[in-house]
């Protein structure tokens, strides 16, 4: 294709967009809304994922040792825990550490440390982190078998609950993305169909003077993909801006509930490129498909 033909066809596409501006505006509106919903679904998924991760990290399995073990016995337990398959991190917490931790947590009761310093009621324990939370059940049973271990507290129910929440949110958000993608294709398809219909005489003339299908299709592609890209820009701006404000608000207005999940959302700076690139690819691909499927029929002159 000649360069002059190329620029001509691009100009034609943009001209058509303006000529059908009401229709273009409507379809871009629907596309933008679809993309925003897709973005929201994605961000929801990412955050639930992060929360589940956070919970997984926070709720280590606590292995309580029996009281009055000698240093040798503790060393034996230590190595037994470390050699248990699936264990990735082991931290020893002495009774003093536990006391120090609690007294620092409760500022008003800082004197607790003094009160219990010489009569420590806490047991020594190990904080064990496993690499696969679904194996937690099995690993905690193994840990319980070790000599000198008093009890094992594994956050089994919590991990189960969050895994299933994660699954549901993932399913719902992917399902939503799929549905919205189809909606977008239908919307673009419909818009292009209308503009094709409005220009069917021109198309017939183009065919009869010997224009190739590519030549006839090109302006519609320009029209469709430009609408898609503009929608992508709008949706990126709205979703990123909105999410940035939400993150800000969330961090500045802590609640007990939010503190439970780490106190902050996934940072915009970690996800913005996924959103923007995703929207652009989506806008481009969906509009391309929408355009291709809508003009095929009219090309058979």
């Amino acid at each position, binding site marked *: *294709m*000649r360069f*002059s*033909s190329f620029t*001509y066809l691009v100009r034609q596409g943009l001209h058509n967009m303006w000529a059908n501006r009401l229709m273009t505006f409507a379809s871009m509106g629907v596309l933008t809304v679809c993309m925003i919903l897709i973005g929201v679904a994605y961000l929801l998924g990412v955050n639930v994922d992060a929360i589940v991760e956070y919970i997984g990290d926070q709720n280590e399995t606590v292995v309580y040792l029996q009281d009055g073990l000698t240093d040798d016995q503790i060393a034996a337990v230590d190595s037994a825990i470390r050699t248990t398959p699936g264990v990735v991190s082991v931290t020893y917490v002495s009774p003093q550490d536990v006391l120090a931790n609690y007294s620092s947590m409760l500022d008003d009761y800082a004197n607790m440390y003094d009160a219990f310093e010489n009569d420590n009621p806490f047991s020594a324990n190990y904080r064990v982190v496993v690499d696969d939370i679904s194996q937690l059940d099995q690993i905690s049973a193994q840990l319980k078998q070790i000599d000198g271990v008093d009890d094992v507290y594994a956050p089994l129910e919590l991990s189960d609950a969050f895994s299933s929440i994660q699954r549901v949110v993932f399913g719902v958000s992917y399902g939503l993305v799929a549905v919205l993608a189809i909606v977008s294709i239908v919307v673009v398809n419909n818009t292009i169909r209308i503009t094709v219909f409005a220009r069917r*005489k*021109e198309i*017939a*003339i*183009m*065919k*009869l*003077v*010997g*224009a*190739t*299908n590519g*030549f*006839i299709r090109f302006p519609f592609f320009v029209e469709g993909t430009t609408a898609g890209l503009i929608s992508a820009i709008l949706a990126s701006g709205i979703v990123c801006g909105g999410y940035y404000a939400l993150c800000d608000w969330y961090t500045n207005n802590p609640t007990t509930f939010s503190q439970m999940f780490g106190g902050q959302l996934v940072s915009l700076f970690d996800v913005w490129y996924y959103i923007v690139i995703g929207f652009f690819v989506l806008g481009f691909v969906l509009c391309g498909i929408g355009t291709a499927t809508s003009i095929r029929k009219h090309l058979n*002159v």
Partner: protein
Amino acid sequence: MIDFEHVTKIYETQNDENVALEDINLHIDDGEFVFVLGHSGAGKSTFLKLILLEEKCTEGSVIINGQDIGKLKRRKVPYMRRQMGVVFQDFRLIPTMTAYENVAFAMRVTNISTRQIRKRVPYVLGLVGLGDKMDRLPDELSGGEQQRVALARALAHSPKLIIADEPTGNIDPEMSFEMMELLSAINSVGITVVVVTHEHQLVRRFKKRVVTLSHGHIASDTAHPEVAEQFAASGGKLPKELDFSH
């Protein structure tokens, strides 16, 4: 230029078959001027559609410029169409474009450079006598002028074949005579011209070859319009010595 070999075209509807053309044999040479004459329903439109590659024949083969168009690949069809120019009965101009733009548009969409378009469009519009009305919209032109724009558009990419579909259908007799003069002039520089029409009067004025279609058959193929007239008057029987079809 154009060869029809045992061409049959049947339109199939749900529970009916409509035979539009049956066993047509026709040869049109390079540089010929041919009228295709027939009443409505005689198969003129189908004849035209076959040449324009809008339809494929059911049996036989249509050969244009040595190419069997039944065997032509779909993506080659546009290139084949660039070898001919068509003037439609209803002109088919784009109402939102000026005369210049209408001609330029047809050239643009066939991948011709802007420089060539700028040179060629005023030239062909000048040829049809519209050099001073290039920036008029179709609505601001008379019927005859619109038709000449359509002719200029058909001529723009220098085709070897010009097809005129009912060139007298939408304009007054005076204009149609001018149009025919233009087509003759085009023919005189070696371009093949096929005029599809139902008007006997037109055919009689120009002493050119006439192919008469009737009920999907070639009823007569003769160099003398008067003979075609006689034939029509005598109810369909052509004297043997005047029959050129075989």
